[in-house]
């Protein structure tokens, strides 16, 4: 019997709990200040436009909706980027971030002859390891999170990365690192890029939170753009699950920055050969919504405001949680809660403490002490602070 999924299993347990005060801080899905799922207005408008158009339901091409692919690449790199202008890239529509990572992993397994080794930050999203493993790659780690500071172990990361065998694959979270919420600063990214370039490493970016981290889509994609500027041809996974709230529609993209247009065409043809025996071609609904939003000036503007709104609410909850912990009389240093960024926060709580939170307070989170700040509201932040203080004092 397969064990329950460590992340999605948390929600399933939460659903079964009958405690009125229960909190789901497990899976990373945004909630508004009433704890409700939030369907973006820009999404609703795009949906209305789609409904009015009365389109057919013919198969998409294997690589997906072309307008979406183009818009997605431009969102990530900026539409004036030399890569976009020259066309030396390929972007295919994928089944959200997971599908993108899997297609990328399979592509590397088949065509990246130089190495089978993929280096993930420690820790990383729980699903990274099985995805790459199922695709036939070997997993390793580089130091990333420093439990002593609940921050970035920059020296450790540089040290480890400088020792990674040349031409290995190294995965970076572009922004809003999951699960820790700890991101390198721009100066640190510059040094990381330099050592990646020096060691000839292959950079794989996972960007699931563009716009969601700082509220600014350009700031959140800065690292990706910097690497490319330094002459590093990266591959990139994008997800629109969080920043457009399109979770269940499965909207994502996989991009390969290539040497030239010819290589891009060859790579595209092989990505299609991988996709066809997986699911033939991708689902249209979410990609159409995303495409309309990205390419309509009004809707794009509205979307950017909504994304900023979500990011701001999360930052506000971080501030309130720390303030409430102080009020509770906690003597611990909780700065990391506000230093960290994005949907998740690595509280620093131990598994035993997490278990108590769940058993005694019906607060659900993953065993590694990760909370989804999106699940915190002004209505329950006090209860959360009290509970955390109780198990950690």
């Amino acid at each position, binding site marked *: 019997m397969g*064990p329950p999924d460590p992340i999605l299993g948390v929600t399933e347990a939460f659903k079964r709990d009958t405690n009125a005060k229960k909190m789901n801080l497990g899976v990373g899905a945004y909630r508004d200040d009433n704890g409700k799922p939030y369907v973006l207005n820009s999404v609703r408008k795009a949906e209305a436009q789609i409904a009015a158009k009365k389109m057919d339901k013919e198969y998409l091409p294997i690589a997906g909706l072309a307008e979406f692919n183009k818009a997605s690449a431009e969102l990530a790199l900026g539409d004036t980027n030399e890569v976009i202008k020259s066309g030396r890239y390929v972007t295919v529509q994928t089944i959200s971030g997971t599908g993108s990572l899997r297609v990328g992993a399979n592509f590397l397994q088949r065509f990246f002859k130089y190495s089978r080794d993929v280096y993930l930050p420690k820790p990383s999203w729980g699903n990274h390891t099985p995805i790459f493993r199922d695709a036939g790659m070997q997993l390793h780690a580089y130091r990333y999170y420093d439990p002593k500071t609940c921050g970035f172990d920059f020296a450790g990361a540089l040290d480890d990365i400088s020792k990674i065998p040349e031409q290995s694959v190294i995965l970076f979270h572009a922004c809003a690192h999951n699960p820790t919420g700890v991101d390198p600063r721009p100066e640190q990214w510059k040094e990381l890029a330099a050592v990646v370039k020096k060691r000839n490493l292959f950079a794989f970016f996972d960007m699931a939170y563009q716009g969601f981290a700082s509220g600014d889509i350009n700031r959140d994609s800065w690292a990706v753009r910097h690497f490319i500027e330094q002459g590093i041809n990266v591959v990139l996974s994008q997800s629109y699950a969080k920043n457009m709230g*399109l979770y269940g529609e499965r909207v994502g993209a996989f991009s390969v920055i290539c040497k030239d247009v010819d290589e891009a065409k060859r790579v595209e043809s092989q990505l299609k050969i991988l996709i066809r025996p997986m699911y033939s071609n991708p689902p249209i609904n979410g990609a159409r919504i995303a495409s309309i939003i990205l390419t309509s000036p009004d809707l794009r503007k509205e979307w950017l405001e909504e994304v900023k709104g979500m990011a701001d609410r999360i930052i506000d909850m971080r501030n309130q949680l720390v303030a409430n912990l102080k009020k509770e009389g906690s003597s611990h240093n909780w700065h990391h809660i506000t230093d960290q960024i994005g949907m998740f926060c690595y509280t620093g709580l131990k598994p035993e403490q997490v278990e108590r939170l769940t058993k005694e307070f019906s607060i659900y989170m993953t065993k590694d002490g990760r909370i989804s700040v999106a699940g915190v509201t002004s209505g329950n932040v006090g209860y959360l602070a009290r509970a955390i203080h109780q198990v950690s004092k």
Partner: protein
Amino acid sequence: MAAGSLFASVPRAPPVAVFQLTADFREDRDPRKVNLGVGAYRTDEGQPWVLPVVKKVEQKIANDASLNHEYLPILGLPEFRANASRIVLGDDSRAIKENRVGGVQCLGGTGGLRIGAEFLRRWYNGTNNTATPVYISSPSWENHNSVFVNAGFKDIRAYRYWDAAKRGLDLEGLLEDMESAPEFSIFVLHACAHNPTGTDPTLEQWKQIAAVMKRRFLFPFFDSAYQGFASGCLDRDAWAVRYFVSEGFELFCAQSFSKNFGLYNERVGNLSVVGKDADNVQRVLSQMEKIVRTIWSNPPSQGARIVATTLTCPQLFAEWKDNVKTMADRVLLMRSELRARLQALGTPGTWNHITEQIGMFSFTGLNPKQVEYMIKEKHIYLMASGRINMCGLTTKNLDYVASSIHEAVTKFQ
């Protein structure tokens, strides 16, 4: 950074034939052009058809302010899974009553095949037994092979199916191949409306197939992409699957709702798992979750919602069955009209196979030279195998297609 490219040696892969055909068709400026290639339904005006019931349900969904875009569970929308399995196994299915059926919502039929194949490679006939032979009909949908290869199987074989000489099922060859297959081999069976031949075993022949498979412990993996579309009747088109279940087989059935719901681009499919008992099925599903999690995490919600809403409302369900019959009837009409014209023209050869075959496709029997003539000279696009999509025929182009076939057959042998 290396001066050359890391991907310098990545070769240009050939395009998938059926999509290249459609691309060529699109570029063709000839006003007489006809697309008999890719398998999607077309109306008599040659247009795609969004089923009226689908439009109705989509409107309902759009107006339901309580719906959001949250993640579905890993295995998919529960109401979809249960009802999709019920559709293929029947309302009175004993297997369902005995709680030994599970469904995995997948991305179309392809997704169902892939998840099923990944599971079998990992857990069937030992663990990670990539050497288990997988038998695919000769010919079959071209993607079957890729699915099983990419799932890790090393020994993909063909079982005899199409008898080109008699233009029918090579039952003797099929049964012989099953007799000589190693025990526990996996057999991919088309539940109905075989693609590309349109030739299905009769009920009696299915019984013979099942008997051999039972005796030799062969695993049935059904591909059901045309339920309802073949005969116009859902139950009739599911007969083979249900017969195998009643004979006590454990089996997989990859169901597609692309054609019978016209939901091609929403990617709606269901992998039905029938096991000996509930406990076995639960354990199988738990492992399916792990497989799904590293491929797409959880499936897309839109299409599953449409199907589940339709199947759970008696009125909408009746309307759907009616829409399906509309499509099936038009195909049947085109078959009889084409055959009649060919016979009236005195086109050399026999043409009863056009009406005896079933489903969207017909294996015309045209050879590569004749096919080339059809495409290049007559701008009628069909697969190199001679497969035509009956849905591409309309009352307006029947005469042109019939006379073109006549020319092709008389000009080239």
